[in-house]
């Protein structure tokens, strides 16, 4: 009786400690960073590949920014999802309201571990789950590039989420279940184009975040990689882009590369919806980067 009473007190405490331990943030330390001098010019490629501006550029008249307005990274885009409303924060190099005074290490931990400078977990609405697959050097270059952009004043309101999603610590458990920085698709390691395409799609491009369906907890169903999913921002679907796709599966690699460059489908329809912003970013990459993306998309497992 006495023992069971002790246990009744001790067990919840032990479970709580275990949960606390299991959900703790696991940041990188400065010794994990490679010897690398960040290169802002190289970082611009990652800025477009990563699509930073699509969520973080300040809205213009309530709409996504176009053209040079994409360099004003004051944040504000809202993602209205089944978990609640996520709001993209200010990532301009403003010292107080943006990320101007972040160290390279803090930036790398945000991008690749999903951990804020104050140690809290980020929600995976920020696709660090994909950015974790980037080369650390590329992430360091990206920070150097963002530091060259205009500082924008003003903070964005925090996310509005329902319970239990509002408990940030829970993301630690989520990360243990679903956060995996390994490549998703096996490609021939000697095929440089495929390796580059996989890197751009699975890493900075974070295509899988919208084109792959999720389970009820928001974990990606990698067995249906890029096979299409409900639109996280509202009605309709994000299309299947595997070779089995009804429409896009019939596109040649050249068609895909041209679409990403010009915004025109092989039927000469124009890109629509959320993909407009993505396409306009990818249009800023080199032809060889787009060709690599296209080659990879023709090589991923077809999903019916």
């Amino acid at each position, binding site marked *: 009786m006495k023992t069971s009473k002790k246990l009744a007190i001790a067990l919840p405490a032990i479970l709580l400690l275990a949960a606390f331990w299991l959900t703790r943030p696991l940041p990188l330390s400065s010794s994990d960073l490679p010897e690398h001098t960040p290169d802002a010019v190289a970082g611009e490629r990652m800025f477009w590949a990563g699509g930073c501006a699509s969520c973080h550029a300040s809205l213009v008249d309530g709409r996504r920014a176009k053209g040079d307005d994409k360099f004003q990274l004051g944040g504000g885009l809202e993602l209205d999802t089944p978990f609640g409303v996520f709001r993209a924060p200010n990532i301009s190099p403003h010292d107080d309201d943006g990320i101007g005074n972040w160290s390279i290490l803090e930036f790398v931990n945000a991008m690749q571990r999903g951990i804020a400078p104050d140690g809290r977990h980020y929600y995976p609405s920020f696709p660090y789950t994909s950015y974790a697959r980037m080369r650390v050097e590329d992430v360091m270059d990206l920070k150097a590039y963002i530091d060259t952009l205009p500082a924008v004043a003003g903070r964005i309101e925090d996310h509005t989420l329902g319970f239990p999603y509002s408990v940030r610590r829970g993301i630690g458990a989520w990360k243990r279940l679903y956060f995996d920085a390994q490549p998703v698709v096996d490609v021939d390691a000697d095929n440089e184009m495929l390796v580059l395409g996989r890197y751009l799609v699975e890493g900075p491009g974070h295509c899988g975040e919208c084109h792959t369906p999720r389970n009820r907890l928001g974990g990606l169903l990698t067995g249906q990689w890029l096979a299409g999913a409900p639109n996280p921002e509202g*009605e*309709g679907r994000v299309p299947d882009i595997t070779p089995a796709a009804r429409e896009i599966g019939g596109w040649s690699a*050249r068609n895909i590369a*041209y679409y990403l460059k*010009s*915004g*025109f489908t*092989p*039927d*000469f*329809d*124009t*890109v*629509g*919806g959320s993909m*407009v912003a993505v396409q306009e970013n990818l249009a800023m990459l080199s032809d060889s980067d787009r060709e690599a993306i296209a080659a990879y998309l023709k090589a991923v497992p077809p999903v019916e």
Partner: protein
Amino acid sequence: MHKSTVRIALILSAVLASTIAVGSDDPAHERHELMEGVRDAAKPVGAMLQGELEYDADRVMQSLEVWAAAAEEFGGLFPEGSEGGEAAPAIWEDRDGFDAALVEWRNAIAAAQDAAPATLDEAGPAIGPAFKACKNCHDTYRIEDE
């Protein structure tokens, strides 16, 4: 001889289409059909620009004529009360902006016709703005039809 016959046929069909459209009481359907014609005319030009089809200056000029006829007529197919389809509410909320986008489209086509690109190298810069005008207008004034 043969090419000019094709050209006359194309112009005639465009004129005929516009006559039908004026008499139509279903502008939503008419504007959809008109856009499909524009798209069909764009396909060979796009294939040439991608290097999938040999460059044919006459065919490009034919497509530009189809576009020019469509661009003249398109703005008249959005009367009050014809909302719907892939037409965004923004067309009626911001008619001036929509009209400006149509002017941009018409001007880009006219410039391409004036340039009359004879080679593939000339075609890209000459026709590019017209394609860009398609995309710009769609970004604001077209919605996905579910």
